[in-house]
């Protein structure tokens, strides 16, 4: 990667075959309810060139109503001179957090293609533009652009050709299906020829399988439609710009409106945003962190009249409460700077309608919510308390009292601890009706009798906050006493992963990040020597290393395993919460490291996280989880010993910031 200016990063257009192309880079432009993504290399087909897509969800997407709809897979294009195709080789891509520029060259010609998604999304439409600029002495230049469209819900199969209506009128192409439309408008001519194609998306939905050549991703096939074409004569003007609008009930004027969007405003806004934060002196770190802040602010979906962060891209384009409140809890000051106190207050006011009997709905859904996130309601209360601590808003404190009280009343049990189903916390995988968190050899009669260390740690913090706000300190002492007795494995110097209180009490000794989360949240309750003992366990059993690509640091810590489990290679849901690395866990590890004076380990993890952000997967964003690099790798490279990015490449709670930043005073 080369850099060009403070916020522009240049990458070669290439694929990375390591671990089945797991490290392929892509750009992701994100706006409220909209996303545009492609991989950072290009492919050729039928004389046309297009940026490639490795996931079937890549392309231009927009969420209207409750449906996240894919509209365009990619624009295909070819440059002609005197009627013959000009053969151009993919060269580089320049990325800023708000636009992507692909560069193609040969000895006598260079073509730049810029993709831009407008910030002006509305509840029913979004859009942006593509600009082609050619630098060539060739004669009689003509550009042909043909959109590859696939108008469908992101999880659905592609529709057949017959379901589309394609209209080419003067300078505008309109492709519609089932009330959803994509419109392209430029200063060229249009034709309405259509042709259905087949495309293999090699990273599929992020699941993997073992084949003859080793472990690879389960690919997916879709049938996008090459729908019409636009032609532009490029002899005098050397550039062509196509406005794009997508959504429901869109018109020609919308495409023209989006074509007028101006990225210089993004730069000004970026400068204003970044001016609120302080950065380290190291130039590389500084630029990476700036990109991280700007991409953090792009998580946005509309709910309840508020624009709020969704859990991630594509299949996570909904508000998931535990993700939301974990992010808000860790990044409260950042949200205060970026969105303001009033926004946080409004969000907290709205969200409490999703708490019932002490438990939070897992996500905002159009059907009846499933109330199965006990950590969600506890994190919600911790956010509310933190908001009050930061703002001193007494009206809010009074307003939230009832919610605090009702959650505590609903969950309180005699010994001060809370019991719940094992999937009610963040390790929520259930396979064949059984939580993957329950050890395989346990016989369980009543699944509501589990005690989870991280949930009870959150609970103790909630009691502590309740005491600070309204007074009730004896409950905390009782709860902490019970916690220590229930979860602390004195022999090992660590916390159990899970405890079951059936006819006999069962305790799972497997080392886990759930224990690290509990240790982090309760770091001020444990003795220093206990945390030191626990750190030794973390270091030996859970800590995972990675060799940064852009820093000369050798193998340094990167994150921790969710569980020190025998399932050490991620394939699918069965390994989702086993021996895999979730960056989300690092924030809790930092709490422990800070407390025991191991700041240098924290700094190494932070640097390594930034390195991942800039070197693999969705550039400027963070993957949901990583597999250990174990099993047969179909194509070894110098990065093969690094954890392998799997599943979703853009995840809110992996995108922590406060640990990187010192928010400027005032």
């Amino acid at each position, binding site marked *: 990667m080369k850099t060009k200016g403070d916020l522009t990063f240049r990458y070669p257009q290439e694929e990375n075959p390591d671990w089945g192309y797991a490290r392929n880079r892509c750009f992701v432009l994100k706006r409220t309810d909209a996303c545009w993504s492609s991989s950072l290399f290009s492919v050729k087909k039928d004389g046309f060139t297009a940026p490639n897509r490795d996931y079937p969800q890549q392309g231009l997407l927009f969420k*209207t*109503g*409750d449906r996240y709809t894919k509209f365009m897979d990619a624009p295909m294009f070819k440059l002609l001179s005197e009627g013959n195709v000009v053969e151009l080789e993919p060269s580089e891509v320049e990325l800023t957090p708000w636009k992507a520029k692909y560069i193609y060259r040969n000895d006598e010609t260079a073509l730049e293609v810029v993709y831009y998604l407008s910030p002006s999304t509305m*509840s029913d439409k979004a859009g942006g533009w593509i600009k082609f600029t050619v630098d060539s002495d060739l004669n009689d230049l003509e550009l042909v652009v043909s959109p590859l469209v696939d108008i469908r819900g992101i999880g659905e199969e592609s529709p057949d050709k017959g379901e589309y209506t394609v209209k080419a009128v003067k300078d505008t192409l309109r492709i519609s299906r089932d009330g959803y439309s994509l419109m392209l408008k430029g200063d060229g001519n249009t034709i309405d020829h259509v042709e259905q194609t087949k495309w293999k998306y090699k990273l599929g939905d992020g699941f993997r399988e073992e084949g003859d050549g080793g472990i690879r991703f389960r690919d997916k096939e879709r049938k996008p439609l090459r729908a019409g074409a636009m032609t532009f004569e490029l002899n005098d003007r050397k550039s062509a710009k196509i406005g794009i609008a997508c959504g429901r009930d869109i018109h020609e004027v919308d495409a023209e409106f989006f074509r007028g969007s101006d990225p210089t405003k993004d730069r000004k806004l970026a400068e204003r945003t970044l001016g609120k934060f302080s950065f380290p002196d190291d130039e590389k770190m500084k630029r990476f962190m700036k990109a991280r802040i700007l991409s953090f602010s792009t998580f946005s979906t*509309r709910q*309840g*009249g*508020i624009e709020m962060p969704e859990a991630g891209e594509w299949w996570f384009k909904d508000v998931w409460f535990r993700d939301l409140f974990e992010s808000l809890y860790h990044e409260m000051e950042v949200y205060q700077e970026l969105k303001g106190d*009033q926004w946080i*207050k*409004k969000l907290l*006011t*709205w969200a*409490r*309608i*999703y*708490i*019932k009997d002490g438990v939070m*709905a897992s996500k*905002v*859904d*159009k*059907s*009846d*919510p499933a109330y199965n996130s006990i950590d969600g309601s506890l994190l919600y209360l911790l956010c509310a308390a933190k908001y009050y601590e930061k703002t001193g808003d007494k*009206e809010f404190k*009074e*307003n939230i009292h009832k*919610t605090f009280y009702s959650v505590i009343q609903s969950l309180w049990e005699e010994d001060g601890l809370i019991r719940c189903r094992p999937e009610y916390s963040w390790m929520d995988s259930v396979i064949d009706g059984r939580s993957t968190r329950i050890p395989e050899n346990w016989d369980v009669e009543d699944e509501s009798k589990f005690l989870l260390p991280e949930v009870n740690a959150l609970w103790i913090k909630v009691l502590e906050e309740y005491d600070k706000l309204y007074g009730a300190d004896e409950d905390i002492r009782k709860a902490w006493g019970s916690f220590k007795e229930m979860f602390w494995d004195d022999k090992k110097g660590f916390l159990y992963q899970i405890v079951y209180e059936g006819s006999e009490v069962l305790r799972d000794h497997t080392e886990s990040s759930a224990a690290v989360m509990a240790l982090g949240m309760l770091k001020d309750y444990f003795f220093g020597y206990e945390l030191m003992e626990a750190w030794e366990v973390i270091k030996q059993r859970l800590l995972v290393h990675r060799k940064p690509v852009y820093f000369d640091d050798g193998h340094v810590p990167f994150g921790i395993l969710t569980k020190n489990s025998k399932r050490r290679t991620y394939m699918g849901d069965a390994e989702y919460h086993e021996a895999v690395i979730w960056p989300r866990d690092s924030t809790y590890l930092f709490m422990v490291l800070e407390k025991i004076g191991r700041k240098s380990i924290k700094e190494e993890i932070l640097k390594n996280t930034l390195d991942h952000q800039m070197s693999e997967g969705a550039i400027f964003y963070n993957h949901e989880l990583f597999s250990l690099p174990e099993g047969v790798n179909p194509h070894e490279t110098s990065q093969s010993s690094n954890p392998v990015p799997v599943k979703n490449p853009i995840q809110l709670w992996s995108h922590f910031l406060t640990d990187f930043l010192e928010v400027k005073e005032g």
Partner: protein
Amino acid sequence: MTEVISIVSGKGGTGKTFTAANLSLALQSLGEQVVCLDTDLDSPNLALQLGHTPDNHTIEDYLRGDINELKAVNVHDSGLMFVPSSLHLTDDEVSEESIGRMLDRFSGFADRTIIDAPPGFNRGFYSSLNVSDRILVVTNPEYQAINDVRKIVDEAEDYGTKIEGVVLNKIEGVFEEASKKEIEKATGLKVLKTIPRHREVTKSIHKMDPVVSDPHSKIGHSFRELAADITEKDFKAPWYSPVVRGLRKLKGV
């Protein structure tokens, strides 16, 4: 337990939505958690009066079964929750059972639900009477309007729904108007507040900024007093001389 109050009127254009929006905000400012529900499907202006452009989700989406009750809830900057409406349903499609289910769900977090009911005597009006603990009638000082209020009194009696009183809106102070006394005598109801036909009201509706949001507004104070009466809480509007009021406004106090 959530109390449900419907704001009703015998005809359109009386200022019912204006009353519902401002009363809801005034109740919210007294520390209550209020949800305001727009069931006026012919003239769905609640969201606009609260300064919100129509969002993806409205009460229609819920009534059609496309979303659950919670997804239709929006939040105003003040913390007031509201359920907007749009023009896509007819009165016949409003199911009282669905509204009842929504109110049940709101009882988990709201102290009070205010319903901006449809004007006139249609199905929506009767549903409002049925699900409400009490109603507030908004009318104008026109002699014809008295008959509408009397009909509302009769219907409410049949349904056993308590009438809180009347908000007399758009008073111009001209001889041809029905007076507060005349209305009280003819309907047997108490006029709780009188709201003048004032530029401030027109401006607030035009700017989509409710009068209660303005701490200097006298009309805003009227709604706060009404809210205090309803909740039996104390509220006394601060008194400033016109000069001091002007200076405070200039300073943005």
